[in-house]
């Protein structure tokens, strides 16, 4: 398939309600909401650096329901890197990642060079934890991918997750940092932080 843009595409998969959108929105917009709106498919764009020039990080937030297999296939075939999200409070949600991982292998063939992150979200809810991190780590090892626990709610490990994912990309150098200038997003965050200090 001919690629007309130099976008770097990340697709986020996982069962419904594990917090895919929350992670993405926390990363892209820095916000978090308690209410749940099921996602069909959203895509966010952000400027990052790639091989010393600027490119667009395109994050596709997918649906947790299995309504549209064709869309999932397309997101996989177009994606460069993948985030597989489960909730640490639901073993079922971890189970549901397996067919997705298998489909990625099937479509992409050689998975070794493809950045994949296994992510256990909602680590703020550890009292109702069902999946031990050691268990997920073992799964990540067998899948030859990286693993991390996050909390979109507490903004724990969210930015790190995306940075780590980009670090796994060996075919080119992609980074969230844009040398020399900062994105508007970052500037605004800093401004906000400044205000917080004053308060």
């Amino acid at each position, binding site marked *: 398939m*001919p690629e007309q843009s130099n976008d770097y595409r990340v697709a986020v998969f996982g069962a419904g309600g594990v917090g895919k959108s929350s992670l993405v929105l926390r990363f892209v*917009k820095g916000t978090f909401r308690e209410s749940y709106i099921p996602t069909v498919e*959203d895509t*966010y*764009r952000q400027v990052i650096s790639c091989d010393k020039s600027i490119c667009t990080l395109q994050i596709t937030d997918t649906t947790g329901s299995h309504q549209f297999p*064709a*869309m999932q296939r397309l997101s996989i075939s177009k994606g460069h890197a993948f985030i597989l999200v489960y909730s640490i409070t639901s073993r079922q949600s971890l189970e549901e990642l397996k067919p997705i991982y298998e489909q990625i292998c099937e479509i992409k063939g050689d998975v070794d060079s493809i950045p994949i992150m296994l992510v256990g979200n909602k680590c703020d809810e550890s009292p109702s934890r069902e999946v031990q991190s050691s268990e997920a780590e073992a799964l990540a090892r067998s899948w030859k991918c990286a693993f991390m626990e996050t909390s979109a709610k507490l903004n724990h490990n969210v930015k790190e997750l995306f940075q780590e994912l980009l670090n796994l990309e060996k075919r080119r150098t992609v980074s969230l940092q844009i040398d020399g200038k900062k994105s508007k997003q970052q500037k605004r965050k800093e401004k906000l932080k400044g205000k917080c200090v004053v308060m």
Partner: protein
Amino acid sequence: MKPLEKFLKKPTSQLAGRAVAAGPGGGPGGRPGGGGGPPGGPRALQRRQSMSRLLLPAFLREPHSDQGLEPPAEEDQAELAGVAEDPGGGGPCWLQLDEVPGPLRSPSSYSSDELSPGEPLTSPPWAPLGAPERPEHLLDRVLERLTSGATRDSGASDILLDDIVLTHSLFLPTEKFLQALHQYFVQAGDLEDPEGLSRKQACLAMLLHFLDTYQGLLQEEESAGHIIKDLYLLIMKDESLYQDLREDTLRLHQLVETAELKIPEDSQPPSRQVKPLFRHFRRIDSCLQTRVAFRGSDEIFCRVYMPDHSYVTIRSRLSASVQDILGSVTEKLQYSEEPAGREETLILVAVASSGEKVLLQPNEDCVFTTLGINSHLFACTRDSYEALVPLPEEIQVSPGDTEIHRVEPEDVANHLTAFHWELFRCVHELEFVDYVFHGERGRRETANLELLLQRCSEVTHWVATEVLLCEALSKRAQLLKKFIKIAAICKQNQDLLSFYAVVMGLDNAAVSRLRLTWEKLPGKFKNLFRKFENLTDPCRNHKSYREVLSKMKPPVIPFVPLILKDLTFLHESSKTLVDGLVNLEKLHSVAEKVRTIRKYRSRPLCLDMEASPHHLQTKAYVRQFQVIDNQNLLFDLSYKLEANSQ
């Protein structure tokens, strides 16, 4: 340029020009330049047509339109005289004309001459109803007639009934219409009284016909549903007394059930599946499923883009207002939690692939189906409106081994016909009326009709896109040949919609200027195409097309835009109410037009399709074309292929 709008508007303005010319001032009747139409214009059609870009090059050619729209004066006179000589058959000639006095200026006489030579504004077969009526009393009068006249000439009564049911929304909103029916039933008198009984029978007949016509549409009209339920219960109370009407009451049961009005106060109706709107959500497996009609309450998915081309997919009612859509977007984007400065209200803009932008008003609704082929909805703040840029084109020039080069013309044509039959069948009869007479009634969705128009435009652009994306000259000539074959088979299938669309695609100026390509076409095909061009020629109000159409027996897929044009003429050429009195002749003519559509669909379409190995692949290809709808881009491609072709 808004071709469909032009297509529908131009002759109308022409008509107005003539009306003025015939008036005291005199002066030249023709307005070849276009643009001086009545300031009001066909309001209904202007609605959002601007965004549904239907390219109809054949209609826009000036010489033809001049020829077609400005018939010689003599012929004109003869026609008018013919109408004037025939005062007997019609209803009472009480029409008052505000333009010009005199019998020759009857607006309906214009229409019979200009609109549809094949189908002049016909006089109703039912005998005059007496003095003209105000909208609120017309129904009573009709019911009286049905009460007394049902036995005398049931054919004429049926037509009267049908006329009123199909067009009542022109003079009375559905809810009021049903209220009037309800009231008439209540006041009909005792059942012991033979007159009371036949009055109630007339009511029952009207209600049955109404339900029969509306069917599923009623689910969208809650208040109308309540009145029908009331009336239904009233009728059922005396059920035992209708000795002769057992069949009718049984049918009433059935119809009320089909309309899903009988649901007792259950908790929730069965949850409906969300239907993807394919044009804006194309990569869905379900494109192979048979299309079913859309209703306003259906939930659909829709992508809304941001200025940076990120997007959110929202789930929304098809009939959602712009305000609702923006509400969903805001919620998804969590704007509420942004710092106060960002809490600017969003606007919704439709951006076409050419970059043309239309700002949608918050109270507009049902916008999804009125978007142009490659138009997208954008949500942005007011200050970023100017900076909005269309999404990049999805299609690339191919060396000539794409799907269109692989498929057989027979397969493509048959799949086109099958799909367009599905789409055509999804359009409710009343959508045609509602689409044209939109301004005079409450909002009712015409989504299925809009989707059919969109598709027509899509096919037209598909033809141009495929030809212009093919770089090799000989292969391109092959493609021309293939498309001409496809048009021929569509015509054979009596699918004039696909036929027209394909011919118009080949007639696209960016395609027709490819001299070298056309020269490579065998003479046989050149001649065939010339014939096709004649058939789609708009001259003398599409005379040749109408002749061919009139010889066809159902099932037929007509070129739907022309039906809308004819209805627009009926609408624009005479008033619905004159001094507050209803113009029955107009109602009848509109209903006649709708009945022709009914006739086209009166028999099922059976295509003899062989299940070829690539059957499903071809089907999927035909059902979701990827097209370029940006005419400038099509011209660019054309000039790249043959620079000095002129």
